[in-house]
């Protein structure tokens, strides 16, 4: 570092650099404010108006509530609501794309499915249903094991389905 002398003082003061430093700091503050604003709005996940999203099947019968912006290895959830017509023979056969599940870790499914079947690139969760007048729902608590964009789809076997996209922050 150039050791200039300021009168008697041997000091690596560099006013030109200092001025640029200050300017860069101001730019940094601006970006920090921007990030905090985005985070408050939900663009960085964990709540906020931008964070929660809903995908619907074309007929509106199936609804998937999901987090548009999720965090890597942190808890998130899918809530899949289906119409009463989805119940056949006392069961609901709800599938989720296997590709999606491969990149996530399902921690808990509520209600607990009777069994889980594998078929056609899908994992089928079979729920027992006693009576259902209007609408039922199942929720999946999961952790996503991949950073970046992620596509998923879910539906009722032989019935409505919907797709969704998430972005996972590291």
């Amino acid at each position, binding site marked *: *570092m*150039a050791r200039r002398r*300021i*009168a*008697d*003082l041997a*000091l*690596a*003061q*560099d006013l030109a*650099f*200092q001025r640029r*430093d*200050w300017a*860069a*700091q101001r730019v*940094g*503050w601006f970006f*920090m404010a921007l990030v905090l604003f985005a985070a408050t709005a939900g663009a960085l996940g964990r709540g906020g108006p931008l964070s929660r999203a809903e995908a619907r099947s074309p007929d509106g019968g199936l609804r998937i509530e999901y987090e548009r912006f999720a965090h890597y*290895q942190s808890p998130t959830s899918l809530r899949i609501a289906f119409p009463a017509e989805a119940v056949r023979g006392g069961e609901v056969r709800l599938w989720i794309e296997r590709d999606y599940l491969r990149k996530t870790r399902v921690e808990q499914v509520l209600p607990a499915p009777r069994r889980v079947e594998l078929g056609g690139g899908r994992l089928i969760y079979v729920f027992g249903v006693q009576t259902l007048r209007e609408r039922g729902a199942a929720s999946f608590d999961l952790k996503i094991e991949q950073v970046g964009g992620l596509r998923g789809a879910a539906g009722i076997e032989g019935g409505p389905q919907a797709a969704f996209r998430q972005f996972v922050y*590291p």
Partner: protein
Amino acid sequence: MEMVLRGLAIYVLLLLLFRIGGKRALSEVTTFDFVLLLIVAEATQQALLGEDYSLTNAVVVIMTLIGLDIALSVWKQRWPRVAQIIEGVPLVIVEDGKPIRSRMDRERIDDEDVLSAARQHQGLERMDQIKYAVLERNGGITVVPKREPPG
């Protein structure tokens, strides 16, 4: 690989944030600054380790951080410019007993900060006893007293 990336990301981000904060940010002026620093450490810890609490992970993360520090120090030694960018430069804020307001304002320092440093390290009483006060790269203020006339 993830272990090294986590260490790298945290190192770079913290470096950047503390530079943006300026020299005086969290330089332990008050007790609360110290508490804030502890909270920053606490918030960082999770992101550094993730869900892996193994010894291997800890060792790799620590080695990443220390390794980066060594690499950076070598780099700084070779290229003075890099040292400037990473550490900032010292700044004279009082010359011959006169505070340089424009610089002090930019660094968010007031007379009391300077006088406090002068009392603490030099036992000085007034601004006019200060020959130089320098805001150092670490955020501390150092004071050079005027020499008393003999007699």
